[in-house]
């Protein structure tokens, strides 16, 4: 189990007060806080061995290259990728998905081919495919979810067929928290020769995800949601797929031989990393991965299940709190979407902010989902390793404060 008290001391942000109150940070689904070791890793690179990587002959350039490529190995180990060369660094999950849309999909998807998504996708896994459909004439299909927030697998079986080229689905919903049965869907897709992309932005930081367990072909996730810095995303795919894909961005680093009118491409993974990479942030992501591995992802998951169970229980006792998504903490991530009475979520967030409580509100980059839920937005509390039951209690008190301000009775 996680000793939250000692672990919180690793995160300097919890030393500060917000409006005179200790910070209750319930927005890790948007971005996680950073432990001191990650902040130190950035500082250390810039102070001690700041140099461009890969072609430097001198000592600090070699140190920087080793640290950068070392981070790639750490990320590969973290998701049990067969080899580090299958880890491509991008800017974020969104860019990782766009990379696939502009290379593999651009090359393989034709008019009338089908891309299967779900109704619970983040805009980052909707818009790249809308753009692809506009470019290629591909058809988009969406697996619906039911009133409890679970995907309709019968509909998925109907939808995935001979015309399906790609199934691109979120592993854990950033709003409902639903953990989707990715492997089952991947097997369906593979039966029909389609590839499978998994948006792991909300799962890789929390569950101990391995590419073998998912049986997917592409996995995309972001550093900043897993204790690492902003500005780094990851795309994993299998070597044979990556090798057959055309390059994404062109420039230095991604090349083999360059002539004035043609060029050859570098080996994996550098074929997809044009220009000077985000060296410092990648190195610090490596440190974040070490930190998580030391805690153990089973412990991370167990902590979040316990906290989610407690929060669902406490919020469930509030008669005027409307909860969205699964109620089973085993089948959802540490994400709880809710509304209080008929209040707009922005009003709720503004008032609890004055109590030092950070929750996210609005459509959470899931406008089609909000339309289906028939709400303009929701409030959302999301948890990570540093959250405690006390944070949940403070949120419950904050909701009381909201009721007082609006002069509404509980219930």
């Amino acid at each position, binding site marked *: 189990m996680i000793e939250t008290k000692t672990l919180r001391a690793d995160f300097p942000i919890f030393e500060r007060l917000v409006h005179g109150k200790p910070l209750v940070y319930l927005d890790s689904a948007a971005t996680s806080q950073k432990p001191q070791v990650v902040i130190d890793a950035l500082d250390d690179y810039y102070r001690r061995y700041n140099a461009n990587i890969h072609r430097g002959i001198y000592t600090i350039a070699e140190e920087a290259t080793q640290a950068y490529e070392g981070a790639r190995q750490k990320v590969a180990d973290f998701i049990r990728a067969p080899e580090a060369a299958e880890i491509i660094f991008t800017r974020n999950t969104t860019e990782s998905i766009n990379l696939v849309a502009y290379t593999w999909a651009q090359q393989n998807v034709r008019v009338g081919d089908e891309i299967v998504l779900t109704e619970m996708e983040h805009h980052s896994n909707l818009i790249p495919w809308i753009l692809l459909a506009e470019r290629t004439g591909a058809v988009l299909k969406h697996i619906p979810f039911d009133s409890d927030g679970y995907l309709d697998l019968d509909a998925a079986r109907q939808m995935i067929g001979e015309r399906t080229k790609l199934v691109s689905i979120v592993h854990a919903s950033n709003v409902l928290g639903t953990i989707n049965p990715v492997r089952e869907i991947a097997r369906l897709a593979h039966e029909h020769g389609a590839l499978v992309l998994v948006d792991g932005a909300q799962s890789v930081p929390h569950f101990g995800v391995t590419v073998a367990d998912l049986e997917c072909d592409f996995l995309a996730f972001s550093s900043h949601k897993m204790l690492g810095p902003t500005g780094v995303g990851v795309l994993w795919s299998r070597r044979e797929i990556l090798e057959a894909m055309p390059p994404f961005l062109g420039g230095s680093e991604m090349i083999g031989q360059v002539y004035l009118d043609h060029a050859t491409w570098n080996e994996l993974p550098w074929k997809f990393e044009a220009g000077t990479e985000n060296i410092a942030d990648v190195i610090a992501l490596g440190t974040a991965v070490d930190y998580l591995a030391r805690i153990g992802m089973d412990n991370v998951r167990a902590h979040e299940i316990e906290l989610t169970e407690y929060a669902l229980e406490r919020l469930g006792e509030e008669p005027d709190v409307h909860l969205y998504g699964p109620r089973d903490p085993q089948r959802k991530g540490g994400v709880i979407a809710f509304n209080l009475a008929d209040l707009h979520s*922005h009003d709720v967030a*503004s008032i609890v902010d004055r109590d030092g409580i950070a929750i996210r509100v609005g*459509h959470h980059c899931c*406008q089609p989902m909000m339309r289906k839920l028939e709400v303009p937005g929701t409030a959302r509390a999301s948890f990570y390793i540093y959250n405690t039951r006390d944070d949940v209690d403070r949120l419950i008190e904050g909701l009381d404060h909201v009721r007082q*301000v609006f002069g509404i009775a509980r219930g």
Partner: protein
Amino acid sequence: MVDDLYRRVVLDRYQAPVHRGPLADANATASAHNPLCGDEITVRARVEDGHIAEVAWEALGCSIVHASADMMADEVQGRQPDAIPELVARVGAMLAGSDEAADALGEIGVFRSVRRYPARVKCALLPWKTLAEALAASHSEPRA
């Protein structure tokens, strides 16, 4: 205090709006959507003899949007449409920090406290911008 903002400025109008609803014979209409927070608002005005006779609004938004729209409807009644862009600019200046603008705005000046909630400034401004757009596009067909 957050309570002050809500108690003094927002709550009366949010809970008992005077100008919410459709407007018969509107001849200026605009709708706006704030993609960041999902708020939607429609503002309708009836302009007669070169003056704003009446304004009404409908919105899917937070209490600040509602309160701002409702107080705006009072404030602009009887004014000339040409004067509205300057008024909207003054509301914008107030929300950006100008006490002078806030003092010049009379009752609307109570919205100056929204400044302390930077994320909410756009909520207070949304009805005003939408009214200005409606008047600028007046005589054209209402948009969905």
